[in-house]
């Protein structure tokens, strides 16, 4: 059975951007609501990417949850309701005990209250992949996003490789190619730790969607990867909590 919950965010933009960042991978999202906070871990329909999200209750203005429960909602629908909000408005999500629906109350210059259905929660608990990462790079989100967009001009996938001095994005299309180099200690590549030189190839579709959506929530991203393993992109959250993505590699054996 569903327990009762109610939580309020004083800056509507935070919630809006976070919902948008999760919705690029999942449409029907099952959140875990516990007395400690809000969390979600889910894969996209083709299971190529995973999002791992957590907001401790300290992110919220008010946070009430009597017992752990699941909240499954259609993020596309929620996003429609809160798309017009601005940063000094506040949003409260609560479960209406009588109807079993989600109540979305937005308070700004005026108050609007929406209800939307709570869907059947997915019971699947996905673990995160345990990967021995050999490269750990800290980068400015906007700089890296720009580079990903540029690689997307010539190809639909990109090879990311690193040695102790630099991080390189290499894209090869049918007729064009691109090489983008970040030197360690530059204004984009803030830090680089390399246990052993590594390289792996990823879909630019996914990468650019992730970078675009998550950059609204974060200025700094930590990349972790190893040769032919999934990459982890951890977007640093100034308000606390976690927004990380895993993306499986392309391996062209032939």
């Amino acid at each position, binding site marked *: 059975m569903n327990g009762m919950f109610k939580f309020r965010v004083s800056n509507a933009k935070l919630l809006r951007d976070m919902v948008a960042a999760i919705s690029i991978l999942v449409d029907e999202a099952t959140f875990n609501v516990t007395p400690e906070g809000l969390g979600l871990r889910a894969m996209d329909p*083709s299971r190529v990417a995973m999002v791992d999200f957590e907001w401790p209750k300290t992110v919220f203005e008010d946070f009430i949850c009597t017992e752990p429960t699941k909240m499954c909602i259609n993020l596309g629908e929620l996003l429609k309701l809160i798309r017009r909000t601005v940063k000094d408005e506040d949003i409260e999500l609560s479960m209406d005990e009588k109807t079993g629906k989600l109540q979305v109350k937005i308070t700004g210059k005026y108050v609007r209250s929406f209800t939307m259905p709570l869907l059947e929660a997915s019971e699947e608990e996905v673990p995160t992949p345990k990967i021995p990462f050999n490269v750990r790079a800290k980068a400015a989100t906007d700089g890296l996003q720009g580079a990903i967009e540029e690689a997307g001009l010539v190809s639909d996938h990109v090879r990311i490789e690193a040695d102790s001095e630099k991080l390189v994005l290499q894209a090869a299309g049918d007729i064009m190619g691109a090489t983008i180099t970040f030197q360690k200690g530059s204004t984009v590549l803030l830090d680089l730790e390399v246990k052993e030189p590594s390289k792996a190839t990823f*879909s630019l579709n996914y990468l650019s969607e992730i970078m675009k959506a998550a950059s609204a929530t974060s200025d700094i991203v930590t990349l972790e990867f190893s040769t032919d393993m999934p990459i982890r992109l951890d977007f640093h959250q100034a308000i606390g909590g976690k927004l990380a993505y895993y993306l499986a590699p392309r391996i062209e054996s032939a």
Partner: protein
Amino acid sequence: MDLSFSKKHYKNVSANLWLLDVLKDSVVANEIIDESHLFVKTLRPGLCVACKGARFLCGKTRCPIIVRANFYLKSIPLMQSDDIEGTSPPSIFVGRIGYPYVYAGPLVPPVKADTSFYDLPEHWFGKSIDEIVGFRSLLIRGKHRVHVERFEEAGKIIEATRELAFAVKPVDVELILKKKPRGYIILDDEVQPFGPSAPIKELKIGNVAWDNQIEKVHYDTDLKAAEAVLELYNRGVLVTKIQRAFSVGAFGLGKNRRLVPTRWSITAVDSIISKYLMDKIRFLPEMDEYRVYESQYLDNLFEIVMLPGKWSYESIEAWYPGTVWNPYGKSVIMYSDWEGYDGRSTYAQIGGCYYAARLAVCEHLVREQRQATVIVLREAHPGYIMPVGVWQVRENVRNAMRQKPYIFKTLEDMLKFLAGRFRIPIQKWLIKSVLLKNALFQKKITDFLKP
């Protein structure tokens, strides 16, 4: 390549008059053809002059100019009168040129009989190009200029044309034209071919028995066009009939109704229905094996590949040199487009055939209650000398879906099989196919989760 028979006098075309020499063998031609009517326009006049339809220098298996000229000769008797009495299948055509001012009107053959077959592509599968072009070229197109949104006040001609689109069976029509019909057989990749045309002076139609189901949604002016299409489809109305009514603005919210060019309405209906089916498919269990369905018709080979996984769709066409859309090339040309799980919001570059094939595969997945990653691979061989309309793709893929599939345990086995079916090396298909490359190379997160 374009072949036109025109009244205009062209200068410097003497080099092109070889066709006349070829046709002089024909008795009819000798009597009727005026030299100034005949003009061959082709990108490689030199080649055609040297070949004169006899040596197939362009690589096609038959000379399209001669084939068309034969149909032209057959339709010459049709062009002797400006008063056409016949039975419309029923069939209508709305052009797109000049949109929003378009030419609309009926297609009428000078034949009094049950002609319903002339406009029912659902029943044409298996017929030869000659047969299809044969009966389609009898259809004379009457045309009347009208603004797509102002069809209500456009007068009796448009009123009668619209009524034809609602008819459940053939209708006797007297089509009085302003002049004798002229022109050549129209061939198009999207639209079924039809014959010569002329502006309408008067259009008289016999009693029309309305199609009850179409009539019902027609009178509902609060029902959106897409919903009307789906309601008819779910009641088993043929796609062709829905498209015909769609093109005369039969559906939709009252104020939004308008004429829709035939080409656009075909793709609109294919797209609306398949979108609706995709919404169902996304909730179905995933296929757990690799399948290949096959069909070959009019020298178009279709291999439809289904892979385990979530719904996504790709369509790739390969045109041999000498085929309709690659007449002069030295190598095979491939076009493709694809969409992921969530579908697409932009128009597919490869055009109407993308949507026609998508409809056919979606129908099958819903019947099977499965979702899958589907790739439609089409190899057009040189025997496909003339386009006959996008129905060929829809019915060819539907036919493939009726066959027993070849089933494989692994992607590698399936690709080996495919390599043996196509003339084009499998590597070329792989380079072009986003979804096959994904299946081969893109790992999943679950591959890295230890059980």
